[in-house]
């Protein structure tokens, strides 16, 4: 899982509409591997839409996405999307290990045999997310924080460089939140690019080194210290979504 910190994700002039009503309007920004980026904005600002567009789940009206110099058109193993907790069937008959193994399917295709390399990648991912003792458990028998780590391990087994996380802190208690913060730091240190939608403003500076302030259009993007300012926060949260300005 070697990483070059110069892998860049470039989004240029991205517009996405639902039934002709624009949800994201002419968004352009660039982020790099080794960054932990908060996606901030009020409800309906397009945070989930942006993540889903990057994951190839939503069709774009215009704009391009490039990762490491290559245009991203549909699904790619380089980018992993972690859905909100509520979307998952927790009673699905799979253990933690089975879930992590699913991360290999994309690289394996339909019928190439699951081999030693795959097993190694799965073991590494399980170790990295500290799930060794839990790998035989059914996924509903995990705590909320452990469930997050199991899905992160699946993304690691997929050997994704970009991890898209939709509100991962929602519904976690304090110890699990702290644990997830530590996990995100670890993944960033490994050179992953983390794009995380987030709604708890007080914790932003502590967790994220970069922010994207979104309100239908991009209000500000860049290092947290310079961009997470009162002025930008006010502009993001106080104007009605998509004022057209």
């Amino acid at each position: 899982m070697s990483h070059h910190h110069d892998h860049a994700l470039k989004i240029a002039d991205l517009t996405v509409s639902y039934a002709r009503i624009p949800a994201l309007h002419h968004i352009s920004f660039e982020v790099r591997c080794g960054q932990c980026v908060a996606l901030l904005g009020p409800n309906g600002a397009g945070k989930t839409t942006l993540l889903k567009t990057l994951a190839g789940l939503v069709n774009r009206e215009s704009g391009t996405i490039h990762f490491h110099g290559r245009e991203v058109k549909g699904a790619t193993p380089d980018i992993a999307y972690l859905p909100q907790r509520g979307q998952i069937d927790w009673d699905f008959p799979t253990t933690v290990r089975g879930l992590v193994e699913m991360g290999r399917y994309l690289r394996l295709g339909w019928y190439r045999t699951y081999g030693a390399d795959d097993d190694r990648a799965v073991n590494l991912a399980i170790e990295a997310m500290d799930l060794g003792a839990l790998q035989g458990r059914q996924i509903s028998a995990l705590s909320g924080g452990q469930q997050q780590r199991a899905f992160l391990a699946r993304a690691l087994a997929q050997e994704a460089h970009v991890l898209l996380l939709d509100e991962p802190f929602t519904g976690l208690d304090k110890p699990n939140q702290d644990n997830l913060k530590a996990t995100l730091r670890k993944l960033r240190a490994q050179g992953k690019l983390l794009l995380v939608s987030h709604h708890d403003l007080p914790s932003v500076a502590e967790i994220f080194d970069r922010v994207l302030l979104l309100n239908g259009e991009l209000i500000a993007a860049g290092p947290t210290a310079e961009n997470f300012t009162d002025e930008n926060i006010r502009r993001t949260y106080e104007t009605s979504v998509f004022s057209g300005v």
Partner: protein
Amino acid sequence: MISEMLQHDFMRRALLGGMVLGFTNGFLGSFIILRRMALMADALSHSMLPGLAIGLMVAGLNAGSLFIGGITAAFFVAIGSMLLSRGSRLKEDTSLAILYTFAFSVGAVLLQSIPPTQVELKHYLFGNILGMDNADLWITWGVALVVIPGLLLLQRPLVLTLFDPAVARSQGVAVGAMQIVIVVASVLTMISSAQSVGVILMLGLLVGPAATMYLITDRFPVMLWGGAVLGCLGTLCGLLLSYRFEGIPSGAAIVIILFSVFITAFVFGPRYGLVAKIRKSRHMHDESLKRWHRHPGE
């Protein structure tokens, strides 16, 4: 008893056909349950009725006419409900309910107009596995040889779709196509089951074994193959039962056997069974009491 059974030609055919049928249904059942399609499968099984009736009227009572009639009707309803829900704000369950009840009504009306000498059609409602002829046998084996290898070949994209359609799509899986694969496999399997367990009871054979395994295991492959083996053995036991007690129709016997296995798993399942749950909650209660005594006030 078995060696005595095997002396009858019709019984040999029933065993050969029934066990394969049970295997196919039990195998497919895992996909149906995890995709939450049990009721859709039920709707499709009922929607075959007008096709069976028309096949009977046009080409007489033979496996081919009923196969083609049933399959056509089920596909009309399946595709029609998809079009109806895509072309309006109706959700798919609603459009399916509208169409399959209509299809079943048409079937009921058509059945009225068929001369009573051809009462064998009632076997297609309740099943008559002992009446399987060679053509039925061929259909059963043919369907098994299409459905099982097909689902195995597509197992990875299917599992991703079943587990989380959104993520599957983000991984490049054609989720819509996978759903269609499951529907097609269901229709084929149901048609091959119509003769032996009947339109009304086939859902028990389809869903019962996989539901039982779902209560026992946390591993998808175990659920898949376990359901298949259970479906096969359940059919065998059902046949033995109906052979031993002549009054019991074979289809009903099979479903009753499968249900008793299901209830056993529901009550005594090692991890998710009723007894295990009660024991576990009592155990947890004891644990917290102990902890309280060790560190009161925590």
